[in-house]
């Protein structure tokens, strides 16, 4: 049995050697299918790992309360018209949470304005800087650290002082040579004094840059960008164990303040880093499934290629089959020979595709600076799928070979 297996493997590789180019072209469908899966999975997995890591950096045991649902929510289509009529979350809500929720350690409020320009006396940035108004506690709830200078204190906030804390990217651009501390920046023409610089944090999702930001004290920000806007309330629980309880308390307090009837849904959203990670993972699962759909099509095409080349092989080698049968090969033996040949061929295609996929993933990481990681299950699955394709599409030609009459077969040229 094992000897027969080795013999079949040797024969299968012999076919490959006899016609390498033709074989390779036939296998292209499988190569492309597997390469696609591997590349896509490498990108998705890399992204997923990175996002989970990024999100875990955003402060521990923290959840956010917001008026708007987060963009990644996949659970049905949100009713935007209704959501837009929700009352804004205010600093008073935050104060109530801080006073009435025992499981809550600290809260902060923040609000952001994307796509802003930052200017100094000498230079001006592009309109891509995120301006965030935040209360002093934000430094705890957001898990950020100060590299130089200091973050806001209560006095900065309550007095609405014109001070700012810069992200490192803003510093690099606006103050490449001098220390930014004590320097002046201008936002919408108003001057602010730089009092601190944040530690570098990188990007979330490879696109949302956490370093290209300017922080202002909340009152200062509201004064400059509009007092009536809704704020996000960032809540930190005492520890991981009290996260659920803290969320319950916050929900109860806010529902009371916002007079939500018992039977109705809350008119605000609570999201944790975990829930964001979860929705992102769900999104990546959808993309994974779609990729596999595309890949299955490609493997189908590859399978037809296998069917084709094996039918050709059986025709070309009719004489050989006749000789083998005359000398005592049973039907099953011939069937196994050609079926394993098909499996070996398409597995070879799978392995080439695997190599190509790895190469593309590596290229993605190196050239596009995109995180990639090839998941082991994708490797295993593509190898199983490609050999499966070989078996399914190789069995018919193999059965045809096995049924040949030895006398007739030997007569063919």
């Amino acid at each position, binding site marked *: 049995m094992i*000897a*027969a297996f080795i*013999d079949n493997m040797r024969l299968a590789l*012999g076919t490959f050697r*006899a016609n390498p180019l033709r074989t390779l072209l036939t296998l292209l469908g499988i190569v492309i299918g597997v390469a696609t899966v591997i590349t896509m999975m490498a990108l998705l997995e890399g992204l997923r790992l990175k996002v989970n890591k990024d999100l875990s950096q955003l402060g521990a045991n923290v959840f956010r309360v917001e008026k708007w649902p987060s963009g990644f929510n996949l659970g049905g289509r949100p009713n935007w018209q209704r959501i837009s009529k929700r009352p804004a979350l205010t600093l008073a809500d935050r104060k109530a949470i801080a006073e009435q929720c025992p499981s809550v350690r600290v809260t902060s409020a923040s609000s952001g304005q994307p796509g802003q320009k930052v200017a100094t006396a000498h230079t001006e940035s592009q309109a891509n800087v995120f301006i965030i108004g935040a209360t002093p506690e934000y430094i705890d709830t957001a898990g950020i650290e100060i590299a130089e200078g200091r973050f806001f204190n209560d006095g900065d906030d309550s007095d609405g002082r014109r001070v700012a804390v810069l992200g490192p990217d803003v510093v690099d651009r606006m103050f490449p040579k001098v220390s930014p501390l004590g320097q002046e920046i201008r936002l919408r023409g108003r001057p602010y004094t730089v009092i601190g610089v944040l530690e570098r944090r990188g990007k979330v999702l490879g696109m949302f840059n956490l370093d290209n930001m300017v922080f202002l004290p909340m009152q200062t920000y509201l004064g400059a960008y509009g007092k009536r806007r809704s704020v996000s309330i960032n809540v930190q629980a005492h520890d991981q164990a009290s996260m659920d309880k803290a969320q319950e308390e916050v929900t109860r307090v806010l529902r009371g303040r916002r007079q939500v009837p018992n039977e109705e849904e809350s008119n605000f959203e609570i999201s944790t880093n975990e829930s964001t990670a979860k929705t992102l993972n769900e999104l990546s699962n959808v993309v994974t499934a779609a990729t596999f759909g595309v890949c299955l099509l490609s493997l189908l095409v590859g399978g037809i290629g296998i069917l084709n080349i094996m039918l050709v092989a059986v025709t070309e080698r009719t*004489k*050989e089959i*006749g*000789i*083998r*049968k*005359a*000398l*005592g*090969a*049973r*039907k*099953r*033996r011939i069937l196994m020979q050609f079926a394993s040949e098909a499996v070996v061929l398409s597995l070879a295609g799978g392995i080439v595709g695997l190599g190509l996929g790895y190469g593309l993933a590596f290229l993605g990481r190196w050239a596009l600076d995109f995180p990639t990681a090839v998941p082991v299950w994708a490797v295993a699955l593509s190898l199983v799928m490609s050999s499966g394709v070989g078996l399914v599409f190789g069995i018919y030609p193999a059965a045809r070979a096995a049924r040949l009459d*030895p*006398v007739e077969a*030997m007569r063919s040229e």
Partner: protein
Amino acid sequence: MLIQLSGIERTYTVGTEKVHALRGVDLSIDAGEWVAIIGQSGSGKSTLMNVIGCLDTPTRGTYFLNGKDVARMDDDSLADVRNREIGFVFQNFQLLPRETALANVELPLVYRGVKAAVRHARAQEALVKVGLADRVHHRPNELSGGQRQRVAIARALAGEPSLLLADEPTGNLDSATGEEIIKLFTQLHEQGHTIVLVTHEPKLAARCPRAVRLSDGLVVADGPGKEVALISVAA
């Protein structure tokens, strides 16, 4: 009795017409005999050779080979019988072109499940026996016609079958080479091998101790090779 055929008929259906290739052949061959089956094309000798070689089964009649009733066996059982009992030597050699002489000779042993090391040794031995000790690793296209036929004979011998069945073994060879092959058969006969040789050449049949003449699907003569070979075709 190695071979016992009685009342063998073989009928083919070609389109709507029935062709009676064999119409009741009775033939017995003892172990150690060298028998020529002679006849013109269309006489049924190829069909008889296929039946004796278990490549085909008779429509009617019984066939005992080495004590086994092979007339009604299924394809896989016939494959096993061919593998163990019969060593084929074909007119156009029927070697696998991509394999070496050694691998070709090993083939029947592969299908018998013989271990690789034993296989190699026995195939090597068989090649030495036919005088090809120095051509073991050559492929068929690197060998002359005579050498190829020797490889085929080695392959037939390697499985130590009870019957060597040769179909026009000199048909594709020049007369000198053909003569060498016949000498090889003579030696094998002397060593005790049972040989059935199918041919249309009276000269070849004349050199066999016994010959059977087939005509129109029936045995028309059976006797010493020299006598049967000389009977006029009209008979």
